[in-house]
C-alpha cells in the first residue's frame, strides 16, 4: 500500500500546473460552499428563533379549530390554572397564558382596528420579546389594572402617547358588547412594522372581564430553550392536558407553516446551485484524470505486461484523484472557514438586504458561524463527486491491451 501511495503522490506532481489547476477548481468551489452553507444555515436558525421569540413561542395549547378560525368562543377554560400546572411540570420551559380579540381602539383623534391580547405580565417576558422592547414607559404590572401597551407605529397613527387614554370596543365571547377604557403605560418598538402597527397588550384579568371570558383564554404559549427540544415538549404537553378537554397542541410548524416552507423552498434552490457546482468540478476532474491516464498509455502498457493487474492500476488512478481531492477538501475548507470567520466578526450584508431582512425577521447584518457540519458538508460532497468522476478513466484501464498500449504514441 505504501508504494502505491508514494507512486500516486509522485504521479500527481509530474504535472504541477495541471494538478494545481484541478485542485484550484476544488478549492474555489469548496470555499464558496463553506461560506454559503454557513451563511444559509445561520440565517435559517436566526429566522426561526427571531420569529418564535417575538411572540408566538415554540408551541401553543389552543382549543380545536382556533388556529384557523380565530373565533372568540373557541377558548381554553381555566387557562391560568392550566398555565401554572405546566410551569410546575417543567421548569425549563416558559409558559404564558393569553386571550386574544379584535377590537376598535380609539384615541382622542383617531380609531383603528387592531388585535388585543390579554397577557400575564409576570410570565409574558419569558415567551415573547415584546416586554423587553418597550422603549417608552414600562410593561404591564397588575393583572387587573386598566393599562395597555401598544406599538410605536400604532401610537403614531393614533396620535397618542404615554399616559393618554384609549377606548377599546369589541365583542365578547358570548357576543355581548365589550368596552373598556385603558391608559397607555408603555410603547414598544419591535422593528417589525406589522407588530408595531396592529398589536396591543393588556393585563389578562382585565381582558377576561372586558370580553366576558370568565377564566378562559385563547392561547397557552410555551417557549422551549431551543428548537431541538420542541418535539419532546409537544409530547409532554399532550400528556399534561386534562383528559377529555379536547384541547390541542400546535408546534411552531403548525403555527407558522410559511416559515418551514420558505426555508424548504430556499434550500431546494440552494441544492440545485450547489449541485451544479459539484457537477462542474467533477467534470474538471474527469477531464484531468482522463488526460493524465491517456498520456501514460505506454507506461501503463509496460506495467501491465510486467504483470500489474488493471485493477491495481485503476486503484492507482483513484488514489491519485483521492490525494488531489483531499488537498482540495482541506485547502478549500480552510480557506472557506477563514473567509466565513472573517464575516463572523464583521457581519455580512449586501445592498438592499435590510429591506428584505425585515420581511423575514432577520437583522440587517448577519454573522455566520462555522460549525463542523457547515465546514465539511459541501467539500465532502465535492470530494465524493470527484471520486465518482475519476471512475470513468480508472475503469477504462480494464480495456487496455498491453501490446497495443506499448506501441501507442
Amino acid at each position, binding site marked *: 500500500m505504501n508504494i502505491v501511495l508514494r507512486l500516486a503522490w509522485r504521479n500527481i506532481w509530474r504535472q504541477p500546473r*495541471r494538478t494545481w*489547476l*484541478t485542485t*484550484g*477548481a476544488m478549492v*474555489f*468551489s469548496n470555499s464558496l460552499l463553506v461560506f454559503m452553507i454557513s451563511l444559509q444555515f445561520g440565517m435559517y436558525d436566526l429566522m426561526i428563533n427571531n420569529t418564535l421569540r417575538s411572540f408566538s413561542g415554540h408551541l401553543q395549547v389552543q382549543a380545536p379549530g382556533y388556529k384557523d*378560525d*380565530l*373565533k*372568540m368562543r373557541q377558548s381554553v377554560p381555566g387557562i391560568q390554572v392550566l398555565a401554572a400546572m405546566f410551569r410546575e411540570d417543567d421548569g425549563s420551559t416558559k409558559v404564558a397564558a393569553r386571550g386574544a380579540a*379584535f*377590537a*376598535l381602539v*380609539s384615541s*382622542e*383623534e*383617531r*380609531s*383603528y*382596528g387592531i*388585535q388585543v391580547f390579554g397577557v400575564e405580565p409576570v410570565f409574558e417576558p419569558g415567551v415573547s420579546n415584546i416586554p423587553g422592547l418597550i422603549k417608552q414607559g414600562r410593561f404591564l404590572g397588575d393583572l387587573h389594572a386598566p393599562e395597555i401597551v401598544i406599538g410605536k407605529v400604532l401610537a*403614531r*397613527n393614533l396620535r397618542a402617547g404615554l399616559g393618554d387614554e384609549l377606548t377599546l370596543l*369589541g*365583542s365578547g365571547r358570548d*357576543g355581548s358588547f365589550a368596552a373598556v377604557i385603558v391608559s397607555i403605560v408603555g410603547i414598544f418598538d419591535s422593528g417589525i412594522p406589522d407588530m408595531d402597527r396592529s398589536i396591543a397588550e393588556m393585563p389578562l384579568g382585565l381582558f377576561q372581564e372586558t370580553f366576558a371570558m370568565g377564566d378562559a383564554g385563547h392561547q397557552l404559549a410555551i417557549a422551549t430553550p431551543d428548537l431541538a427540544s420542541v418535539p419532546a415538549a409537544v409530547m409532554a404537553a399532550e400528556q399534561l392536558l386534562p383528559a377529555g378537554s379536547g384541547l390541542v397542541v400546535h408546534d411552531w410548524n403548525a403555527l407558522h*407553516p*410559511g*416559515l418551514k*416552507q*420558505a*426555508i*424548504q*423552498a430556499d434550500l431546494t*434552490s440552494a441544492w*440545485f*446551485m450547489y449541485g*451544479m*457546482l459539484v*457537477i*462542474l468540478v467533477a*467534470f*474538471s476532474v*474527469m*477531464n*484531468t484524470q*482522463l*488526460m493524465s491516464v*491517456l*498520456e501514460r498509455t505506454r507506461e501503463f502498457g509496460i506495467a501491465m505486461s510486467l504483470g500489474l493487474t488493471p485493477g491495481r492500476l485503476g486503484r492507482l488512478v483513484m488514489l491519485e484523484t483521492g490525494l488531489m481531492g483531499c488537498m482540495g477538501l482541506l485547502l478549500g475548507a480552510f480557506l472557506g472557514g477563514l473567509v466565513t470567520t472573517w464575516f463572523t466578526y464583521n457581519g455580512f450584508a*449586501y*445592498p*438592499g*438586504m435590510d*429591506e*428584505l431582512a*425585515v*420581511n*423575514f425577521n432577520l437583522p440587517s447584518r448577519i454573522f455566520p458561524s462555522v460549525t463542523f457540519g457547515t465546514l465539511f458538508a459541501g467539500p465532502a460532497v465535492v470530494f465524493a463527486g470527484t471520486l465518482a468522476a475519476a471512475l470513468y478513466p480508472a475503469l477504462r484501464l480494464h480495456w487496455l491491451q498491453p501490446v497495443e498500449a506499448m506501441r501507442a504514441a
Partner: protein
Amino acid sequence: MGELRIVTLLAWRNLWRNHRRTLIMLIAVTVGVWAMIFMTALMRGMIIDMVRDGVRVLPGHVQIHHPEFRDDPSVNNLIPASGAELNRRFADKGFEAWATRVKVPAVITSERESRGVTLLGIDPAAEAPISFVADDIVQGRFLEDDSDTGVIIGLKLADKLDTELGKRVVLMSQDQNNEIADRGFRVVGIFDSDPDGHEEAFVFAGRATIQKMLRIGDHVTEVVFLGDDYRDVEPLYEKVSGLAGADVEVRRWTELDTYLSTMLTVMDGFVFVWVIVIFLTLSFGLVNTLVMAVFERVREIGLMLALGMRPANILGQVVVESLLLLVIGLALGNFIAWMTIEPLKDGIDISAVAQGMEMMGASSILYPVLEMDDVVTANIVVLVLGFLASLSPAWRASRYQPVEAITKV
C-alpha cells in the same frame, strides 16, 4: 485576413484532434450554460410575478396622496383638490389607466365577529384595468358603479367573519371630526386572490357610497396611475407630476413598496453573480484543457514558429480554439435551456411550499421567464471571461523558442 482563416482552420482542427477531451469540456460548458440560464429564468419568473402582483395590489405605477397621508393614513389627510377638479386635471390626458379612490382603515363587523381591514371606495369602471379585484371574483358580482351599496370581501375574510354572500355587515370608520361613521352593507361579491393575505386585508365598496358615509363630499385619499412598463416609471412620473399641482405628493411604486423594488434590484445582482460563479468554476477546467492542449503540441508549435509563423498567430490559434469551444457550448447550452424552459411555460406547481412563498410574496406556481437581457449577460460573460482565461496559455505558447520547442522530449 488570409492569416485569420488559417488560424481559425488550425484552431478548429486542433479542437477535434483529441475529441474525447474536447467533448468532455464541451459537455461541461453546455451544462454550465444551461444551469446559468435555467436558474435565472426561474428566479426571474418568480420576481416578475411578485412585482406584477404587488403592483396590482398597490395598485398602479404612480400614486398621488396628501403629503401627510403616508405617515398618517386617515380621513383627515384627503387630497385637497376635489374629485371634479382631479377629473379636470387628469381625464383625457392619455394615461393608460387612472382612478381615484378613498382608502381608510375601518372595522368590519358581521353577525358574529369583527375585524380590522382597509376599506377601499372605488369606481369599478376606472379600477378594473388597474387593480386585482375585478378578475378575482369567485362568488356574486363585482361592484356595478361607484354608488353601489354592496361590499366585496375576500374569501378568507368571509370565513373569519362567519359570513357569506347576501348577508349584512357593518363597516365602521371615522369622519374628519373623529366621530364614528358607519353604515350597513350587503355582501354582493367574494374574491379569491393569490397571495391570500389580500383577502383578509381589503374590502371594496362604491366610492360615492363611502364618501357619503365618511361625509367627505367629493374628495378622495389617493389617485393611482398605470403606465405601460413597471420597470420604467420615469416618463409616467414626470407626466403625473406635471399635471398634479403643488399640493400633493407624487410617488412611484418603487418608493411605495420598497421590498419589491429591492427584490428586483437584488435579483439583477444575483443573476450576475450566479453567472460569474458558474463560469469561474468552469474556467479551471477550461484553462487546464488549453494548457494540456498546448503542452502536447509543443513540438508542432516549435516547428510552425521555425517555419516562420508569427507568434501572434500561435496566440491566435489557442485563443480561437478556446472561443470555438465556448461558442459551441453556448449554442448548445442556450438551445437546451430553451428546450427545457418551453415545456415549463405553463408553470411549475410548487404548492407544497405555498405558504412559504406567501411569506416572500410569491405565488405557488412558478413560471420561468426567459429574459433576453439575462441570456445576453450569460453569453457575454462566458465569452469575455473565456477569452481572458485563454490568454495565459496562449501567451506562453507564443513565447516558445523554436529550437527548444522542436527538440522538447
